[in-house]
């Protein structure tokens, strides 16, 4: 069903435009003009007026009873456009009320030149983006440097550390994330077992589902999926919190109290993340294997003991341990990137949104990159 609009009232104004007389033309505007008539007025003038360079136009406003600001702005713009194009144009005969509005909208003045639109070409844009990226990288490394100094300061004088905030932050980033981490890693283990079961069944290698799930969960997917969840939850939260504090001058206020934001705000967040992410990963590993176990028992007719024994045979402690090392590094990456983005926020709500987005996107990118680097390094070192 379409929206029913009120029918347009009869126009309370009209434009009389006699044919040009010797290169000049008097256009008479009569009645009462409001902003609502602006579109129709604009179209009518565009249709009726001859090209500006050929004909001088005088707008005769003596028949105009009233006009509002919006309509006057349009009339003045028509006049200015004609003057800018090199034609002559003026208003005559306005009554007192109309003249006041005409003056307010500078209808008697010459057109003010529009500021030239600065166009940046393709190469210019590429150059600007590159410079921006370099500046961002420089800022980030400066941030990491300052953070190292801040941590060194806290280690030297432990009393200056903001230890109060660590437990609450661990609760927010760790304990509160347990349900979602469990659910997702369970499903990942389940899906992986389910997908591979069909293939392995063809060779009668059902039991090796346990190996596949155990190794891929502990070495790769457990740490990575957990880090991705924590990045989406806590990384975004860190960036948004610090960003909002930055734009509302709370960070400045903290500094004027002699309290460094890195030591007071960033340190507890990164430390909390560093402590909880390996724990979450361990939980994720466990539940992921349980997901595989469910498929093994229900779908592949394996016994629980058989599946668990096979899992135990497939894994060595190092498989779990390397996943935990990765997750600790993931935690540092998420914490550093998100807090750096938060503290770099400028420009209000929109800036907070922009920095929060970059925090998550850059953290995800870093996670994948670090994961690849670890896999390559462990492979090269034969671990």
């Amino acid at each position, binding site marked *: 069903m379409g929206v029913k609009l009120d029918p347009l009232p009869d126009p309370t104004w009209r434009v009389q435009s006699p044919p040009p007389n010797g290169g000049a033309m008097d256009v008479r505007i009569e009645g009462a003009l409001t902003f609502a008539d602006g579109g129709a007025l604009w179209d009518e003038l565009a249709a009726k007026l001859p090209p500006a360079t050929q004909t001088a136009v005088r707008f005769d406003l003596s028949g105009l009873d009233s006009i509002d600001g919006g309509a006057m702005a349009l009339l003045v713009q028509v006049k200015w456009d004609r*003057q800018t194009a090199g034609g002559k144009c*003026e208003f005559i005969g306005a009554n007192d009320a109309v*003249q*006041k*509005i005409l*003056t*307010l909208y*500078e209808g*008697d*003045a*010459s057109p003010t030149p529009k500021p030239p639109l600065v166009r940046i070409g393709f190469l210019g844009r590429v150059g600007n983006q590159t410079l921006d990226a370099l500046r961002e990288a420089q800022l980030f490394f400066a941030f990491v440097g300052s953070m190292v100094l801040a941590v060194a300061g806290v280690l030297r004088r432990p009393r200056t550390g903001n230890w109060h905030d660590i437990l609450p932050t661990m609760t927010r980033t760790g304990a509160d994330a347990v349900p979602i981490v469990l659910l997702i890693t369970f499903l990942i283990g389940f899906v992986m077992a389910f997908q591979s079961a069909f293939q392995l069944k063809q060779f009668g290698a059902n039991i090796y589902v346990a190996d596949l799930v155990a190794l891929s969960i502990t070495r790769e997917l457990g740490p990575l999926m957990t880090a991705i969840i924590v990045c989406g939850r806590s990384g975004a939260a860190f960036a948004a919190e610090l960003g*909002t*504090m930055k734009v*509302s*001058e*709370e960070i*400045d*206020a*903290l*500094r*004027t*109290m*002699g*309290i*460094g934001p890195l030591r007071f705000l960033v340190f507890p967040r990164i430390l909390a993340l560093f402590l909880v992410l390996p724990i979450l990963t361990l939980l994720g590993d466990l539940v992921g294997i349980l997901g595989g176990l469910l498929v093994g028992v229900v779908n592949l007719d394996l016994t629980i003991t058989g599946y668990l024994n096979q899992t135990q045979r497939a894994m060595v402690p190092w498989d779990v341990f390397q996943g935990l090392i990765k997750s600790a590094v993931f935690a540092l990456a998420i914490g550093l990137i998100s807090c750096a983005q938060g503290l770099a926020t400028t420009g209000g709500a929109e800036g907070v949104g922009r920095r929060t987005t970059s925090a998550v996107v850059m953290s995800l990118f870093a996670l994948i990159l670090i994961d690849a680097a670890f896999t390559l390094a462990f492979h090269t070192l034969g671990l």
Partner: protein
Amino acid sequence: MSTPLITVTDLTMGWGDVVLLENVSFEVQRGEVFAILGASGCGKSTLLRYLTGLDEPKSGTVRIEGVGTPTLEVGRPAYGVMFQSGALFGSMNVAENLALALTEWTRLPPAAVSAIVRAKLRLVGLQGSEYQQPSELSGGMKKRAAIARAMALEPGLIFLDEPSSGLDPVSAVELDDLILTLNQGLGLTVVLVTHELASIFKIADRCILLDRASRSILACGAPETLRDECDIPAVRHFFNRTSPDRPTAGRTGENA
């Protein structure tokens, strides 16, 4: 005259290619209420950021007696700052906002900290608001809480950024009275940025008027003297609230 508390020498202010003030110098005496005035966008708040050490000037120096160049995060601050928005920490209640600097820089037992917090809140007329969140406070209450927070460590100097902007006339007057009380009762030196003429005449001992066009300090002195005796047109316009060149609706213009 004794040594000034704040000495600004040849300060140039701006960022990138923009220069707002060039080579300005002025002094703030101990114990006075000193106002920084000027039109919107002339850099009053930026100047305050230089005075408090939040930003570094393009060139020139700011020195605070007993502090040197204002630098943040290196020790117990010697001055308090109130930001225009109040900038109270949204995650803490009012009492925690005030207690933060105390627990950070003193070894007072919790009971003493809370006694000081209550005393400061009484001083600004906010008794009973200890456990309110900043989001529950009105604009005037936020500013008073922010002043109390700036006063937490008993500084001898506080900086206020537009204390009475956005307040109703009664709250604005109350805030002016509070600033006067702090200045006269505690001998506090107050440096403030403001637009409010009534408040300037009421509380400021001396003021400077910044001017963006000439990138300089247009005038410096007691506000009454500047209003009555200064013959610079822009200064007269400022203090008499007249507008030099704004066209009015009733004016009849010339034909283009």
